[in-house]
């Protein structure tokens, strides 16, 4: 019990969950396991429907994680350049930084207050928008392209095609 309380109240845990990357990755990994499993257990649909939906869900979640590592993490290195588009903070010195290193130093030296909170918030908003575009708009289109070759290789679609031909 004391271990659980220590873990729940620790600074390390709070810092970990405060990070958007950690949030999306941990949630995504659990979804990659949970959602396809429950889809396959759904009794209201036929086997073909369940298999297609479960494969799509698994591929989507796995690709999302890769996309996050490959695109969103590097994107965070340049995300400070977009801060100037937020009207409430556009006049702050930290927003005028030319390099990531300069931005980090200026942000670290900012005194805790409403402006620092705004900059932190703007950074998170950029991260959420980028995640939304990559995870919800681009990744599903990639899944559409690769799902059928993968399903054929796994023998899920092949069976259906043979059945169609015989009928």
């Amino acid at each position, binding site marked *: 019990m004391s271990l659980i*309380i220590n873990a729940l109240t620790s600074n390390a845990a709070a810092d970990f969950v405060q990070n*958007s990357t950690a*949030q999306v990755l941990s949630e995504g990994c659990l979804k990659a396991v949970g959602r396809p499993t*429950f889809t396959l257990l759904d009794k209201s649909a*036929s086997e073909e429907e369940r298999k297609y939906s479960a494969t799509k869900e698994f591929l989507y979640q796995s690709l999302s994680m890769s996309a996050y590592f490959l695109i969103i993490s590097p994107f965070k290195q340049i995300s400070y350049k977009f801060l100037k588009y937020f009207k409430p903070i556009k006049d702050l010195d930290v927003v005028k930084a030319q390099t990531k290193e300069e931005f980090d130093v200026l942000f670290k030296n900012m005194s805790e207050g409403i402006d620092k*909170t705004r900059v932190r918030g703007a950074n*998170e908003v950029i991260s959420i928008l980028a995640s939304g575009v990559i*995870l919800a708009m681009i990744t599903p289109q990639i899944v559409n392209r690769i799902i059928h070759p993968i399903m054929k290789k796994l023998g899920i679609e092949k069976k259906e095609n043979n059945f169609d031909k015989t009928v």
Partner: protein
Amino acid sequence: MKNTSGIIDKILVRIGSSNDSEIVTASLAAFKLIFIPVATMSDKEVTPKQKSYAIKRDLVTELVALMGYIGITGLIKNNLTAPICSKYYKQKANELAKSGKLDINSDDFKTLVNTDSKLIKKSIKELSLEDSEKEYIKNLQNIAEKFSLHLPQKLYLNTKKTISHICVCTLALTLIPMITNKILEFYSKRKNKPEVQSNIQTLNYAPIKREKMSEYMAKTRLGGLNVLNY
């Protein structure tokens, strides 16, 4: 224009002050609610039945996720954070007493053991505190500083963030897909109900017809095969 700027400012301050898990995940669920079904619709190689089921499932899942992340996470976070903070101080008081750093009969020990979690929550939310309550929180802060424990405000925020994330993970792994299955099952049962009723009606009529036919067959001495075909 001023209003838009004000709304953006509020969003920045809200997310910047506490970037809880449910904000990120709920925003992503909102994106997915629109764009994933659209992507599934554009898949041309899939059969209509598979496509319809996948779209239905995506929509229900993301809708349940959106409501779950905001509703359930918010509910659990608001009700569990303060009691856990109390438990933390109680546990630390006992540990300090065991190690001999704190006397069981001292006021500090009693304050830590009997921490009023509701007051911590009230002080975090900056609600109007009475003088005695302010004094209590200040005293608790001093004791925490003295024994290098988490300060009440920091402790509350840490716990809230961690609980929020655990909740989101639990929802993502089990509750959301489970609720989605139940909703789809219920929807499927309702959709199939009229067909079942019409089958029952035809079954009710069928035996009467068969009886009449078998009487007729007996009279006309026709073979059993015809009866079966009928």
